[in-house]
């Protein structure tokens, strides 16, 4: 009984799925408010908010369900999960719907519902790469690197065919992160970075829309490039926010001039409505996410795969958020990455919450093993007194 109480006490706050789900739902509701604000001066804002609320409820349920599944099951299904995601990315190129020049969505039989398979592929990709580490003892370092690089090449190539350059860069970043923190060699990291940059610049040169974005970023004052106009609008939108938000409390400039104020340009919309203060809260929030997931991953009783999975997932979503924020603050050229949880997008919201559920599962799985080991040790000590 004493051991049972100790075990219950050891279950820290962040390993309790309902509390985690509640926190994510609160964030999601704030996201709905921001989406409403971004569409309030034109269009029909409730159309977007209603749909986002439905996905939020599904996401919360998915989070709790995913956190209840033992992490060992995820480890066991990582290979079929990865293969399934590759097949889905292939199918979307053949049967998907093109939106905004990118063929990356499936149109579901339900009215006007779209699903983006690259969102689900994020989890499959991370799980697969973390699992490669587990087999590392039997392989040479080069074989391990080659295995991970091959998986990354397949994913990145499929994403570039859509074309979704932003997500491709994100996947490559995740691959480098997992390889490096799992003890990878610097020479292989430099080799893969060099090859990726070569592929990246080839893609830029071969795709006029990408070149336009780079030129617009380098010359934001020009009226020639569409992307330079977009960057200028980011700047104007944030300026209207000031320190504490716009006078009206809404995002009027974002509504009127910013493309996609509810998704790809949401951070600038946040700064317009809630000012520098609101922007800082968002930046600090995602920086804390990285720290929190890192702290979770450093707990001693976790397995290698669980540690890597937790940290990599934290990295993925923090880096995605920082990339989105960097685009909106004109630090990097525009790219179509959303702000996790907050931006409009059903598949993104649902899969992010599923991913966090899997992280909670990973954080608890080896805790139970650790506690079990402690329990066995104590009872052994007790028997021998």
């Amino acid at each position, binding site marked *: 009984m004493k051991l049972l109480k100790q075990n219950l006490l050891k279950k820290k706050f962040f390993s309790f799925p309902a509390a985690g789900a509640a926190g994510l739902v609160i964030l999601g509701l704030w996201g709905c408010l921001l989406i409403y604000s971004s569409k309030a001066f034109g269009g029909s804002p409730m159309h977007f908010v209603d749909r986002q609320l439905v996905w939020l409820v599904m996401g919360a349920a998915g989070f709790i369900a995913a956190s209840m599944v033992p992490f060992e099951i995820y480890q066991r299904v990582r290979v079929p999960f990865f293969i399934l995601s590759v097949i889905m990315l292939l199918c979307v190129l053949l049967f998907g719907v*093109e939106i905004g020049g990118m063929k990356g969505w499936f149109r579901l039989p339900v009215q006007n519902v779209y699903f983006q398979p690259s969102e689900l592929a994020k989890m499959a990709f991370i799980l697969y790469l973390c699992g490669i580490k587990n087999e590392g003892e039997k392989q040479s370092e080069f074989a391990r690197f080659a295995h991970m690089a091959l998986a990354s090449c397949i994913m990145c190539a499929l994403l570039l065919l859509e074309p979704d350059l932003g997500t491709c860069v994100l996947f490559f970043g995740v691959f480098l992160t997992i390889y490096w923190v799992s003890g990878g060699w610097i020479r292989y990291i430099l080799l893969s970075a060099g090859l990726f940059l070569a592929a990246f610049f080839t893609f830029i040169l071969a795709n006029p829309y990408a070149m336009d974005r780079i030129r617009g970023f380098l010359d934001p004052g020009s009226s020639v490039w569409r992307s330079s106009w977009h960057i200028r609008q980011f700047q104007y939108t944030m300026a209207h926010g*000031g320190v504490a938000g716009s006078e009206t409390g809404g995002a009027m400039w974002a509504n009127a001039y910013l493309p996609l104020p509810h998704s790809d340009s949401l951070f600038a919309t946040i*700064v317009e409505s809630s000012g520098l203060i609101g922007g800082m809260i968002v930046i600090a929030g995602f920086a804390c996410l990285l720290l929190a997931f890192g702290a979770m991953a450093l707990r001693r009783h976790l397995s290698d795969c669980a540690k890597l999975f937790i940290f990599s997932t934290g990295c993925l979503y923090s*880096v995605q958020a920082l990339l989105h924020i960097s685009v909106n603050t004109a630090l990097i050229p525009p790219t179509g990455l959303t702000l996790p949880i907050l931006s409009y997008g059903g598949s993104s919201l649902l899969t992010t919450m599923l991913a966090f559920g899997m992280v909670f599962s990973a954080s608890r799985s080896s805790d139970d093993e650790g506690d079990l080991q402690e329990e066995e040790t104590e009872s052994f000590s007790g028997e021998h007194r």
Partner: protein
Amino acid sequence: MLDEKRFRFRTKCIWIAGILWALAAAASVFYYTVMARDSLVEESSRIAWRQGVLPPVRGRILSRDGVVLAWTEMYHDLYLTSLPGGLKRREKLLQRLKEEGFSGIEMSDQESLMKHLPYCLKREVAPDEFPAIRKLMTAYPELSLQVRFERKVLDSTEIQSLIGACSVDSDGIFVGISGIESEMNSVLAGESGLYQVMVDRYGNWLEGTLKILMPAEEGLDVTLGKSLSELTERDEKTE
């Protein structure tokens, strides 16, 4: 097995990189919201805010027995002000216009259409059509409902020649050019007002941003010294 020490070290390196990146983003936000704010807001105001003349409502011309001989009517016309840049969106818009029954425009000949923008899709949109039109305009901001005033005169040759005609100046204000419209122009015309409004990237007015800087003064009605029958009788006698 994961090297615990190396894992911790490399994790911390990524933490530091992430925090530095977050600080750079925060500095950028600070720059735009505080340091460069005034110049950016001023620059954006030149793009977004429009001032315009509020045309006054022109006074009516009445006969002695109260019959309205000349008055102003307001109409709403639906215009296509621009075509979307994206090909798919453009096709969808043109298809939707076709489905809504806007005929008389060559949907397939987009180049020719571009030369005739803004293109009037429908004149005199009826009030009961407004909800459907508004819904269309919400989905396609390239559509615009524009107000048009017309000066009407009683359907009688004698009265029309007596009342005279009006022209419209560049600010949309009626100016009498013959007959009583011209003689009594200073009374009928009223005083123009001034407004300021914010427009979006399509040139559409943003709701809630209209400011009346100076209200327009309506023109005064003019009542003639003779009744309708006397006016028409007088002309018959003259003939």
